[in-house]
């Protein structure tokens, strides 16, 4: 669970970097807090991301796109895939594999997580056009 000073620091970064109407912290006083963020890709498509905060920042937060995405062959992105950088879906939502545990530290900001997921969405759309897997564009962490 995030401490108050951490929450304030995250808020300040988001406030400085993003328009205030594209993110909202939800259920912060419960055991299942989360952050909802909107992401617009360069092609103009808008996605909603849900970042689970119950174990943040000690653990990597789970990030879901608020719907099921499909690959270029119309297969759902609902299982762990190394080439597509995805993990098990939940409640019908695709989960993005954005960070490896060996690279995670508790200094990583929610803004950085957002930027990585935004990159993933760009590459997902590139995959839909080219048919190349996402890891063609995004290298794996060590």
């Amino acid at each position, binding site marked *: 669970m995030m401490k108050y000073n951490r929450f304030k*620091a995250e808020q*300040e*970064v988001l*406030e*400085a970097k993003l328009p205030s109407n594209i993110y909202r912290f939800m259920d912060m006083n419960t055991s299942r807090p989360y952050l909802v963020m909107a992401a617009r890709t360069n092609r103009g498509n808008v996605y909603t991301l849900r970042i689970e905060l119950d174990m943040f920042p000690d653990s*990597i937060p789970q990030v879901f796109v608020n719907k099921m995405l499909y690959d270029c062959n119309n297969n759902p992105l609902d299982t762990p895939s190394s080439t597509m*950088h995805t993990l098990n879906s939940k409640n019908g939502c695709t989960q993005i*594999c*954005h*960070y*490896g545990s*060996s*690279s995670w530290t508790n200094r990583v900001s929610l803004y950085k997580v957002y930027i*990585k997921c935004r990159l*993933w969405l760009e590459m997902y759309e590139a995959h839909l056009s080219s048919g190349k897997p996402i*890891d063609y564009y*995004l*290298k*794996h*962490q*060590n």
Partner: protein
Amino acid sequence: MNEEKTNKIAKVVKDTQSGNTITDLVFNPETGEFEEAPMGITHGAGEVVTDMTKDGFA
């Protein structure tokens, strides 16, 4: 945004750009100890023993 807040953010950004570097542990044969040293700087005959994890994608 007020000036104080802007300064705070500037500090955060500065830290990320310069301070995000991780130090290496370098051996000092004179003391027999490992010492923290800024990443990439070799200290004489010191031997770097840590490797920073590279920032890639999971």
